[in-house]
């Protein structure tokens, strides 16, 4: 069986001023080839103005099992949101 080239994750900025967003992944021997291939596969219809590639093995992800401890506490911190505060009608533009 053949050995696969390293796997890369592709991130694309669709328009100037927007964040790069994960588009998918591909195999390539190095970063340059990964960018060239990403260009051919993910931006054939003007989907992007900028490409990032990161070798997948360098991506560290949070564990889904930890999601309760990571994200739940935010629930009882409603004061982080502007809607938490009732202001008098007279206050404008806030």
């Amino acid at each position, binding site marked *: *069986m*053949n*050995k*696969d*080239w390293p*796997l890369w994750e592709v991130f694309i900025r669709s328009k100037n001023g927007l964040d790069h967003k994960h588009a*998918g*992944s*591909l*195999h390539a*021997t*190095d970063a340059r*080839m990964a960018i060239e291939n990403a260009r*051919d*596969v993910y931006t*054939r*219809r003007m989907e992007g103005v900028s490409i990032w590639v990161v070798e997948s093995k360098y991506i560290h*992800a949070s*564990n*889904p099992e930890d999601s309760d401890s990571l994200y739940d506490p935010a629930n009882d911190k409603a004061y982080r949101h502007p809607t938490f505060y009732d202001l008098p009608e007279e206050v404008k533009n806030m």
Partner: protein
Amino acid sequence: MIALQDEKHFLEKVTHEIRVEPKDWMPDQYRKTLIRQISQHAHSEIVGMLPEGNWITRAPSLKRKAILIAKVQDEAGHGLYLYSAAETLGISRAEMIDQLHSGRAKYSSIFNYPTISWADIGAIGWLVDGAAIMNQVPLCRCSYGPYSRAMVRICKEESFHQRQGFDILLKLSQGSKAQKNMVQDSINRWWWPSIMMFGPADESSPHSRQSMEWKIKRFSNDELRQRFVDMCAQQVKVLGLELPDEKLKWNEKRQQYDFGEIDWKEFRNVVNGNGPCNKERLATRIKAHEDGAWVREAAAAHAEKRRAKSARAA
């Protein structure tokens, strides 16, 4: 006990339309089903390039040639999106390619039919891509995140495929008598294999039920097939031609078309490797892969050399 909890949590997610992601717990059988389905789907995109690729050098005009190249290139991309989605489930690309080349993995039987006239390229776009779209649109809501995202991307690109195919047939059908006959002949040959693309009838489709429960599948084979028949029965009139089915008839009560019996013996025969082009397709694919070996080796060696060089410079 923990396994039971996991399973419950998984089913809850699926029921509430929350996507399952690669690192989430999932039942083994769910993982296996997805690997099989997604990799077969990927193989179909890749093998599907072959019947059309045959006509790139013989397209009747520069415009048609450019369009056909663009379409075939899209299909290569679809193969890549899908292989990537399958890889998130823990199978390697090399393993999938190996399964295809050794004949252990299947691909859509439709690509085992020959493309003998230019009209066949039109019929493939209209009928084969058309049937694929009918199957694929519901997959955009598949419960497995990476698969559903790949399908969204694919569906965006597919609609041009179907339209360019219909456009080929429309232009030919407005041409000479011979051209019109060529289109009818092509439709005659592609119609039945196209409606077989939806798979076995519901009562003989054993995996369907579980896949529906897991929201991998949203509609049954027969439901999708019926929709496709209804759609094409209308569209073929625009071409001024006919679908090769004497039993095709509008049913006022059902508000759907009745249609003839599918030859399932032929279907099984082609699935089992005895279609007109099974051997040729697989041989072509394997040859392309083997002929490309030196390119892959050279690219790997080149990258290695550059890495060594930049390490020395540092």
